């Protein structure tokens, strides 16, 4: 066991924490997906923070000595000032800080909002949405005077950041959400001190190869004739979805999930982030798609490309915050 994951005094159990920031809550549930293993986990570990499942207050964390938490799983990106404060606090209180899930690792779905301005997001959320009832056009303000005195709420940031944009991260576990089997393997490796040397670039609980590598569908080595969306045509079973014209992010996506979606007849949406050495999943996908278009003229290539709906949202669905460009200008 590495020096940093040594069981912290007291009852000799590992102290673990799970925190959520800008995320949907799915990651918290995914940790429970390890099923009966949770009992084994509880045998070797005490939970010292888990807002979704246990009643701890921020003040409890403040009161912990530095490096008190052995392993902290942090899910969600950083969208506001509260999340950044907690990220910094948990970094200080934890020996090992793990970015857990696509949002903490790559920004995830919330980071798609990096293609919008703050004004645009506020307009949509507080004024323009048809189901809203906000005749006075109220918008949340960081500081409000009320009959109870001054009230302060977290500041909304100009864009969604990854956890590693804010603090040093020891490991990253990608996936939306991470698959339980891989997570359990990673927990065992962690408890056994078998994880690779800590380094925020290290992704664990996944493999370097692409989802295509785990995919059982047959590759017939044919080029794409036209693009289709999943609701527009029936996919032929057992044949590579991409070759059939459905945009499947498999070639540009890290494996580990066991090709879950493709096995369920849906194209991979890319939730495990870029595979191998690639940093920018969208660029990798553009590279892959470009080599398999069945177009012999520039006009035909353009025609086919114009059929792709929302390239940014498709190629960077989970990784806007870790892409080269990080968002829209």
């Amino acid at each position, binding site marked *: 066991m590495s020096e940093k994951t040594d069981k912290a005094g007291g009852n000799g159990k590992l102290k673990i924490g799970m925190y959520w920031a800008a995320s949907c809550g799915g990651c918290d549930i995914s940790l429970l997906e390890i099923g009966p293993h949770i009992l084994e986990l509880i045998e070797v570990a005490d939970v010292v923070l888990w807002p979704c499942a246990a009643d701890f207050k921020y003040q409890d964390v403040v009161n912990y000595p530095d490096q008190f938490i052995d392993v902290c799983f942090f899910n969600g990106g950083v969208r506001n000032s509260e999340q950044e404060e907690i990220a910094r606090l948990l970094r200080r209180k934890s020996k090992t800080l793990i970015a857990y899930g696509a949002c903490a690792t790559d920004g995830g779905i919330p980071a798609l909002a990096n293609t919008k301005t703050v004004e645009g997001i506020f307009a949509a959320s507080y004024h323009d949405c048809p189901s809203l009832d906000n005749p006075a056009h109220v918008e949340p303000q960081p500081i409000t005077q009320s009959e109870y005195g001054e009230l302060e709420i977290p500041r909304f940031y100009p864009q969604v950041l990854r956890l590693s944009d804010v603090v040093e991260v020891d490991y990253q576990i990608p996936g939306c959400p991470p698959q339980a089997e891989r997570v359990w393997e990673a927990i065992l490796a962690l408890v056994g001190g078998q994880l690779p040397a800590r380094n925020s670039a290290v992704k664990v609980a996944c493999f370097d190869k692409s989802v295509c590598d785990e995919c059982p569908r047959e590759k017939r080595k044919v080029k794409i004739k036209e693009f289709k969306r999943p609701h527009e045509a029936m996919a032929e079973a057992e044949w590579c979805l991409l070759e059939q014209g459905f945009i499947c992010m498999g070639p540009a996506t890290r494996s580990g999930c066991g090709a879950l979606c493709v096995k369920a007849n849906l194209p991979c949406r890319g939730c495990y982030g870029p595979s191998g050495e690639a940093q920018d999943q969208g660029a990798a996908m553009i590279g892959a798609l470009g080599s398999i278009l069945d177009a012999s003229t520039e006009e035909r290539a353009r025609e086919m490309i114009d059929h792709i709906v929302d390239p940014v949202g498709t*190629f960077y669905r989970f990784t806007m915050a870790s892409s080269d460009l990080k968002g829209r200008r």
Partner: protein
Amino acid sequence: MAEAHIVQQGATPAAAGWEPRIIAFLCYWCSYTGADAAGTARLKYPPNVDIIRVMCSGRIDPELITTAFAHGADGVMVCGCHIGDCHYISGNHKTMARMPLLKRTLVDLGIEPDRFVHEWVSAAEGEKFARLVREVTERVRRLGPLGWPQRMRERGVGCGMSLEPWGA
């Protein structure tokens, strides 16, 4: 190191004698030879273009282009052999499909279309290359600095908004 260099140059604000910084990826067999021809013929073109030679335009990974912009390039050019002339037969067919798709994506991310140019330049087209560089430099100059690294730093990328932690 090269990266830091680009950032530094790109960071110069327009007011303080800013010059467009353009990265050009050229394939070895046609476009680089074309650029060479422009030089041999002593054609004038602005010194704003940094040429990166690759064996084939089909080896220009779109990530090289996103990286260039992210690190401070104001414009990027990609040139390869005309369709039918690629030394590796079909390398530029891939370029032909990738670049328009990349361009759509870059435009959606707020990079003006004039900042990313994809053209075919043969070994004999020194004149075309020189003209292309003149045009692209002029168009990028009119657009002003892209300044991606500064923009992202202002938004907290890589550093957060640096608040003190609770109970500090």
